[in-house]
């Protein structure tokens, strides 16, 4: 009998490798795999980071599953998903988002409308180690792809008709993550090339054009204890539906912001609680700024 060398798997032997490298609880340091973003990729809550999700380190497989719920003044957003990570290098993720617009779109004849989207993601770490290279400024850098497909329900004929949005779209992002270990401060900068309207829940692009733009997203976190971190995020977004047949500014969108607290009571579990500000959502019918709470549970191996 020959043995498989688990530390040098070719892509074709990934599945076999998964059988001979049992998942280990001890691969990564606590919280260094980030939490699950709304889009499914590992990162902060609103933004993907360059870290690879799960507890798996080099030569290991890992995975996470998450469920997240956001309640703002007038809307409810949920996200559920999972990811697989290999070798602290590659991450594959899926997520489903659901935005309950309640009765906010009743003026458009769309009371009770639910917007949904499915997201498939891939992320590749291309350089650096966010945690262990504590004597260098070089961050961990990853390149990611998110492929999104929106289900706009009864809004679809309008959204994908006169409003000119497309049903599906892809986003490409480049993330740099650095933990300044001595001070326990983590920073992330993500540049996302996107044409998504409200992160894709309102499709991609608009009648004005395709509108792919490069937008920055910034996260800062501070480790308070080994299992508790406090942070904040800011995410710029495209604004492709600002000028639409519904009127100038009726579908304008704004940056997302949050302040979060993440706690890992035991290694495979993390709970993230946040205050979020999603800006004005469809201000033409609901002019209030959407602030509220965010709660996410992640299980990892």
């Amino acid at each position, binding site marked *: 009998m020959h043995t498989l060398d688990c530390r*040098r798997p070719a892509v074709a032997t990934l599945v076999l490798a998964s059988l001979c490298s049992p998942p280990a609880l001890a*691969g990564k340091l606590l919280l260094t795999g980030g939490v699950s973003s709304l889009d499914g990729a590992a990162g902060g809550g609103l933004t993907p980071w360059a870290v690879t999700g799960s507890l798996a380190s*080099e*030569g290991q497989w890992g995975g996470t599953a998450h469920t997240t719920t956001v309640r703002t003044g007038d809307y409810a957003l949920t996200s559920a998903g999972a990811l697989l990570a290999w070798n602290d290098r590659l991450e594959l993720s899926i997520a489903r988002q659901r935005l309950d617009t309640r009765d906010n779109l009743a003026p458009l004849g769309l009371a009770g409308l639910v917007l949904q989207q499915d997201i498939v993601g891939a992320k590749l770490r291309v350089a650096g180690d966010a945690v*262990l*290279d*504590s004597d260098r400024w070089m961050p961990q850098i990853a390149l990611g792809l998110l492929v999104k497909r929106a289900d706009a329900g009864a809004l679809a004929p309008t959204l994908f008709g006169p409003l000119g949005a497309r049903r599906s779209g892809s986003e490409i992002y480049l993330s740099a993550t650095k933990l300044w*270990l001595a001070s326990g401060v983590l920073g992330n900068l993500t540049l996302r090339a996107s044409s998504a309207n409200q992160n894709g829940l309102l499709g991609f692009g608009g009648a004005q054009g395709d509108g792919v733009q490069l937008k920055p997203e910034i996260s800062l976190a501070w480790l308070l204890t080994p299992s508790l971190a406090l942070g904040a995020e800011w995410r710029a977004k495209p604004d492709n539906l600002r000028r639409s047949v519904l009127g100038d500014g009726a579908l304008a969108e704004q940056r997302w912001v949050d302040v979060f607290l993440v706690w890992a009571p035991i290694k495979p579990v993390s709970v993230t609680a946040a205050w979020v500000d999603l800006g004005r959502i469809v201000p033409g019918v609901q002019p209030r700024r959407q602030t509220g709470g965010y709660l996410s549970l992640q299980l990892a191996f």
Partner: protein
Amino acid sequence: MHGPGPRLHGAIALLVLCLVSASARPAPRDDSLYHAFGGREGLAALMADFVPRLAMDTQIGRYFTSTNRDHLARQLAAQLCEVAGGPCTYEGPAMAPAHAGMAITKADFNRLVELLQASMAARGVPFRAQNRMLALLAPMHRDIIERE
């Protein structure tokens, strides 16, 4: 209106003199981290807690089965003392040859960090000092983890 008095001029001159002489002297060695760990005694006690954790660990204990624990504890205490700016000289083997051929993975390295975190917490080392120490030790991963 009065101008600044001779006393103020004197104070400024003194301040300038102090700054100039301070910058001319080599900076004193920062041993605050060494003291945050309780000096030699604190580091010896830390390693007396840490080395048994290493040896008994299900993941990385196998690397220490034939190790003289007291000797390892003394060497690690001297190494951390030196790294932390204390009055010690680590005279043990360099990291790369000491770990060559052991096929130590990043997961193993991280496990050691976790055990050290547990020991530091058990010894009451403040979290900030823990992280300063880890930041000094973490770059050793380049000499310890076996690369493909």
